[in-house]
């Protein structure tokens, strides 16, 4: 057992104590799970700590799927399944995940497990089950509404499982939740170049807040600072020739 002296400052001491308790309880591996590093694009917000594993993160906004997949891609650096839970209403409103599109962005569809639940309640239950399992490296669930109790249950489940939990919401929800962070992701209008996202960290347990603008690399889903040079693989500019227009 680890009996090294505890670090002096409060936050690190708590983290070290928690890790010891986890080791005593026999869950986790005994050493701290490394966080998910989201790259230079988000470093101004998250710093060296990255996005914590064994935790639930809430993502809302019109570009939540893209941001969620970028996190998933980074978190899938270790073995395990990518479990995507959604219900029939979600399939109708936002579409079903499409493996060719995921494969094009470096997410291996062979690791994807899609849970297509009949309703939100079943989605939540499936999510809890998947989060609690050591087999899932990433669990992405789409739930429109979630109470504090449910978010707490999901948080406890992910602490048992050791993966990372991503909660996708289409609309912002001001109700409190047990999630470690809460994000708002929306696309930034841009005439050309790769998709740009404005990511706003609205709440986090560590207290960090703020917003950044990132470019999404279309082949790896890596998030790069938006200020960098234009991507060579830019989308074609819109046609400028004036030909006949027609409504169809």
């Amino acid at each position, binding site marked *: 057992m680890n009996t090294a002296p505890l670090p002096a400052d409060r936050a690190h001491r708590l983290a070290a104590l928690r890790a010891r308790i986890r080791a005593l309880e026999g869950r986790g591996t005994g050493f701290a799970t490394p966080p998910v590093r989201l790259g230079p694009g988000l470093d101004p917000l998250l710093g060296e700590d990255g996005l914590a594993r064994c935790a639930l993160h809430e993502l809302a906004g*019109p*570009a939540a*799927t893209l941001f969620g*997949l970028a996190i998933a891609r980074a978190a899938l650096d270790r*073995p*395990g*399944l990518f*479990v995507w839970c959604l219900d029939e209403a979600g399939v*109708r409103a*936002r*579409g*079903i995940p*499409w*493996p*060719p*599109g*995921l*494969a*094009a962005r470096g997410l291996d*569809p*062979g690791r*994807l*497990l*899609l*849970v*297509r*639940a*009949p309703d939100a309640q*079943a989605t939540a*239950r*499936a999510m809890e*089950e*998947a989060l609690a*399992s*050591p*087999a*899932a490296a990433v669990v992405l669930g789409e739930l429109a509404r979630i109470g504090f109790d449910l978010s707490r249950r999901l948080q406890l489940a992910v602490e048992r499982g050791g993966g990372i939990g991503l909660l996708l919401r289409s609309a912002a929800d001001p109700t409190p939740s047990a999630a470690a962070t809460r994000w708002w992701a*929306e*696309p*930034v*209008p*841009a*005439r*050309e170049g790769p*998709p*740009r996202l404005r990511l706003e960290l609205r709440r986090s347990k560590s207290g960090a807040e703020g917003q950044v603008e990132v470019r999404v690399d*279309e082949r790896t889903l890596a998030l790069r600072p938006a200020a960098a040079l234009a991507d060579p*693989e830019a*989308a*074609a*500019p*819109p*046609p400028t*020739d004036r*030909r*006949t*227009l*027609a*409504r*169809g």
Partner: protein
Amino acid sequence: MNAEAEALRLGPGLLLTDARAACPALHVFPAEPEADARALQSLALWCTRWSPKVAVDGPDGLVLDVTGCAHLWGGEEGLLAAVAEAFAKLGLEPRTALADRRLAARAWARFGPGGILPDRRALDPLPVEALELDGETSASLRRLGLRTIGDLRRLPRAALARRFGLALAMRLAVLEGAEEPPFVPLVEPTRFSARLARAEPIATHAGIEAACARLARDLCRMLERAGRGARRLVLGLHRVDGVVARLELGTARPSRDPEHLCRLFRHRLDGLELGFGVELAILEAVETVECPAEQPELGAAADATAIALLIDRLAARLGADRVLRPEPVASHVPERRVRWCPAGVEPRPGPWVASRLCPLRLFERPLPVRALALVPDGPPLKLEEPIAGRVVAASGPERILPEWWRATDAAARPRDFFRVRLEDGRELWCAREGLWGEPEPPVWRVLGSFS
């Protein structure tokens, strides 16, 4: 027909007025043959407590193959007594008979006194109808004065066969001990099955779970000895009131881990109605596969086990058709490029043909949209309804032709796909269906989304 009805000489074929005259207090219900058949079926399942091989026999009978089962109830008398007692608890009075041939047992139950058939000669006084011949044959036998089975037995078999057909001769041969065709049991008996009977019925979910744990342990020990793992399991819960709940589930990987099996059933037990309690629980491995003993390993194997466990648990909760893994299909039509395989079926690996033009999500029902576009084949410049916005950038077109060799695609039109970016930053996958110059004007649809 119960004893009271028999005493009043009520019976099938009686006119309702006559029946009312015999018994003024009679309650009348219309016959429901389908409901009766269902009830008989569930009664047959209930009877699996005595023998695994049970079948419904005609509209009003059950047949049990009790070969090798009777000793569990202290011999054949004991078995019949147990059957009578259990049925009496349900408020039923069946006519039971036990014989070495089904035909003989049916004859003894329906036309004889019932019970254990003492010897074959005992069937002699029974009427010829007991042979279950068609009405015409029975009637002509009677006309010739052949009223009982004994009468027929005394006649030369060849002459009977010539005069009344082979069926009669064969039935008589069966009564002499010839083989009968085997019957198809309602549920296939299994090699691996564990049972737990309780004199005191289990009425709580905690109790059922404990019983389930014990059954799983017994079953897994059996499977381990045989070197097999279960792929499909059935848990039969026999309630005191005669209802049998059959819970069936499958596993993603052959398993003989009692804890795992238990956990799979626990979800299914959640909402289960227990009534007055469960008196008998039977856990069977319906489908097993070779599963050599494996040493618990670190790394890949442990991951595979954890993955299988997770898939099983999700499938047990939601049903296997809701826990899916993608399999690539060699097709250009977007809607056909993915086959979602139910969990537990290993998807065939294959290359995913993909490009930047593939969206992240696909709408299962493409959304028709009004668009302003360049003629004849330019990208949309503006989407109007129901998704509105100016298009600031577009990539494409990517023309995808329908698969004309399929009947469903015979009338389909070619589609030009564009990835368009709207002024608010949203990116959509749109397609123009059809070409200008065709009698039908083209239609724009939104098929997917990139954010």
